[in-house]
């Protein structure tokens, strides 16, 4: 059962081969058994989940079935869920029970999906290893002494270890794609504005975008169908006609289903910085795509080298402002003792935030300060436009851009924790996509030393369905994505 695709689970539920309560029970048992060594979940509430499962079974019995009805889904603890503890991986929100549902959570609820639990993450999504969580690091199911990536590391570890059929994540600079790569999953960041940000605790508002983490591109398409859609509560949400993101997957195709597809290979993705073993796997994937009928063209993304620098100005700038609401006044952590108002602010924030969050608040405050704003923030915005222009230019010559997701396979817990710049560079291939607001997916493309590597496909705006199909065709002829970590039976 735990290896079935979401579509097959849906069929099993609809035909009453299994009930949602039974299915949810299977996963809750696995979580109880395996989560202690992984620490993928911050909150599990079996009674609440099973109550949802019972309601889903009632719906299934009445035949009111949607694609995800009765299927348990794990959610990154960045999404506010009514009556659930919603911590964002921080001590600051360690006592925050949300009184409302994020739009994403509401959409899953509406479809009758079961909320299986809230997953671990880097504190306020700031990190690439899930090590900055107040709730401790999450282990990579492929090697327990290694990181699962981040910031959506809890979701990735949970799905990889089959503690959940699928999960949600958020991606500000690679936080879905990089953990997907490091945990052998398919993870997609859609075009900015496709999924509502309402109720998703903001890190960097102009970059944050939710997306699915699953075992295949086909599963991602089903999750995206549920998550995407206009939301009047989010002014940056895009009002577009609804679409079926799985529509291209089911189309009949011959032996060369991607004939005519032009894959752009930016030299910036194939230079120094990427480990040889990952590059070898990416090259093999390119060969596979040629077999599927695609042709490759060289493209350039000349400003991409500036993306990490620009990102680490823009994201902290927005974060420094977004996190100002966590002041101990209305909710969240407040220092137990303080002398006056200023002291309460200082102590509550000093005690409530971890080191990486403080580092980014300081950077962000600095770059927005009087006298520095032009040199840092405005300059970074200019770079952002250059990067978007680079992609626009590249997409004149190709349909999709391909490269590695992460420069290496999973690194050891603690290996980069002391060196923020090394940690920041693990997102070197993913960050430019967020700066441009483009959709991208990471899919498994093989193993090096027993650790999975990810292939990144970047599409033009709103080409999610196309990207999913390109990923799906690859997954039809490879079985990397079907590999599961040993030791998690």
């Amino acid at each position, binding site marked *: 059962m735990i290896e079935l695709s979401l579509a097959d689970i849906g069929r099993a539920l609809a035909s009453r081969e299994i009930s949602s309560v039974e299915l949810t029970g299977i996963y809750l048992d696995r979580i109880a058994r395996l989560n202690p060594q992984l620490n993928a979940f911050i909150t599990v509430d079996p009674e609440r989940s099973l109550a949802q499962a019972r309601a889903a079974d009632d719906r299934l019995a009445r035949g009111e079935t949607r694609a995800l009805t009765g299927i348990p889904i794990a959610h990154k603890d960045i999404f506010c869920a009514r009556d659930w503890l919603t911590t964002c991986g921080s001590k600051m929100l360690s006592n925050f029970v949300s009184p409302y549902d994020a739009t994403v959570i509401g959409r899953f609820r509406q479809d009758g999906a079961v909320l299986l639990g809230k997953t671990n993450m880097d504190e306020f999504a700031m990190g690439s290893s899930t090590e900055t969580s107040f709730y401790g690091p999450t282990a990579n199911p492929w090697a327990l002494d290694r990181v699962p990536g981040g910031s959506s590391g809890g979701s990735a570890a949970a799905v990889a270890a089959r503690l959940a059929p699928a999960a949600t994540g958020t991606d500000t600079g690679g936080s879905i794609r990089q953990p997907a790569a490091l945990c052998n999953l398919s993870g997609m960041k859609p075009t900015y504005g496709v999924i509502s940000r309402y109720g998703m605790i903001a890190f960097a508002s102009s970059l944050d975008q939710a997306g699915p983490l699953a075992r295949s591109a086909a599963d991602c398409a089903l999750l995206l169908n549920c998550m995407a859609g206009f939301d009047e509560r989010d002014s940056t949400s895009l009002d577009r006609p609804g679409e079926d993101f799985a529509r291209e997957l089911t189309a009949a195709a011959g032996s060369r289903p991607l004939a005519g597809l032009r894959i752009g290979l930016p030299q910036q993705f194939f230079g120094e910085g990427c480990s040889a073993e990952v590059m070898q796997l990416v090259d093999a994937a390119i060969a596979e795509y040629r077999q599927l009928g695609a042709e490759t063209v060289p493209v350039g993304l000349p400003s991409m080298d500036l993306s990490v620098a620009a990102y680490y100005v823009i994201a902290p700038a927005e974060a420094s402002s977004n996190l100002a609401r966590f002041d101990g*006044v209305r909710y969240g952590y407040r220092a137990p003792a303080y002398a006056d108002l200023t002291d309460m602010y200082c102590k509550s924030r000093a005690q409530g935030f971890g080191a990486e969050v403080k580092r980014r608040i300081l950077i962000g405050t600095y770059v927005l300060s009087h006298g520095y704003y032009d040199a840092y923030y405005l300059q970074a915005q200019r770079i952002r436009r250059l990067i978007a222009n680079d992609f626009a230019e590249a997409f004149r010559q190709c349909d999709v851009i391909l490269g590695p997701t992460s420069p290496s396979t999973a690194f050891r817990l603690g290996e980069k924790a002391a060196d923020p710049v090394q940690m920041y560079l693990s997102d070197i291939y993913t960050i430019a996509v967020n700066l441009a607001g483009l959709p991208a997916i990471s899919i498994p493309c093989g193993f090096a030393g027993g650790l999975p590597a990810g292939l990144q496909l970047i599409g033009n705006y709103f080409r999610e369905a196309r990207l999913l199909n390109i990923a799906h065709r690859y997954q039809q002829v490879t079985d990397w994505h079907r590999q599961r970590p040993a030791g998690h039976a």
Partner: protein
Amino acid sequence: MKQWEVVIGIETHVQLSTRAKIFSGSSTAFGAAPNLQANAVDIALPGVLPVLNKGAVECAIRFGLAIGGEVAAKSVFARKNYFYPDLPKGYQISQYELPVVCGGSLSIQVGETEKTIALTRAHLEEDAGKSLHEGLGPAAQGRSGIDLNRAGTPLLEIVTEPDMRSAAEAVAYARALHALVRWIGICDGNMQEGSFRCDANVSVRAAGESRLGTRREIKNLNSFRFLQQAIDYEVRWQIATIEDGGSIEQATVLFDPASGETRAMRSKEDAHDYRYFPDPDLLPLVIDRQWVEQVRAELPELPAARRQRLINEHGLSAYDARIVTTSLDLANYYEATVAAAGRENAKTCANWVMVDLAARLNREDREIGQSPISATQLGGLIARIADGTISTSMARKVFDELCSGGDAASADEIIARQGLQQITDSDALTALIDELLAANPGMVAEFRSGKEKAFNALVGQVMKATRGQANPQRVGELLRQKLG
């Protein structure tokens, strides 16, 4: 002694009369129990996002058109970052580099002089909540309370150039602005509830100096009287400080109405660095010409245009025209009165509205909108004065009766019911006068011996006999004929 010139610029926070807040759906109604009108967005729960209220934008467009400013095709919301307990997000959403309205001007009158005050800009922003430090009862144990009902209430901040040269000009500007924002229906103007609050930037310089002196900003003046007092004090203080050899430090000051003094709240050194940057949660505000034109078409005739029309068409003096256009309600009342009384009686209508009615409203502490006498009733009454049916003094009695809310619907009804018509009929008056002269031979003799007083006494007798209804002028004429 050296001559000093006072330079004043004013920033006004005008609370816009929208039903919902600027970035959330909660109500803006005043006076609810604390925090009952604050939803998830207003209290800044994790994950919530702002959505712009179009009604607030429309108010800004109305204002931009009313002052002849430029309504920006594209403006940008920015975050103004600072920590305060009644600022839930830790930043205020405002506009910084690109405001919704640029330029424009407002005409004011001080004494006989008319002056134009140039406006710099007007921008949309949200209000903060309120911190309550007193009156929380013993349970509070000296702690402060936070009421977020006001958080997110839409404000239009209107900034002038440093064009005013006296407290009187500043007050005239504030009054003109207050009248305008109510006139165009974007603000209720309730100053006690904080719907209209002024900050005055005040500096002084030697007469003839072209550079501006260092300014101090007096914050949060919520009455015209305080505005006047605060500026007067501040100007005296600044001049005295400089004349004593001191210099003015840029500062933000508060006015204490109890002592009548201003005192520094914070100096330039501890001024906040607000770290403004465009709010990534909101798209740039785009206003197309079509929207602007639609709002223009719905705009009422503006005060200046209305004044000019009343001068031209009603023959009012500039002074009268300004008074009856103090507010849209008053102007409409005045014009409705004229409609009932007839255009030829416009000046009389203006007098009644500005003097008799104003006194009555003032005594009863009412707004024109709550006038105890309708414009139609007043116009009907004035028509009866004009056609000689009743005297002015008799009219005041009818006016009082109409105001006191009896069952009479019109002046005509009261006149008819109580028989108050002036007696102008010569035959009736002649008969009465003959009777009187016969009964008072002594007075007649006194008059004939040259005592003019006796004549007035005789007129008084006639008026008394007719209970004031005789037309006094006619009585005089007839008496002179008889005694001739």
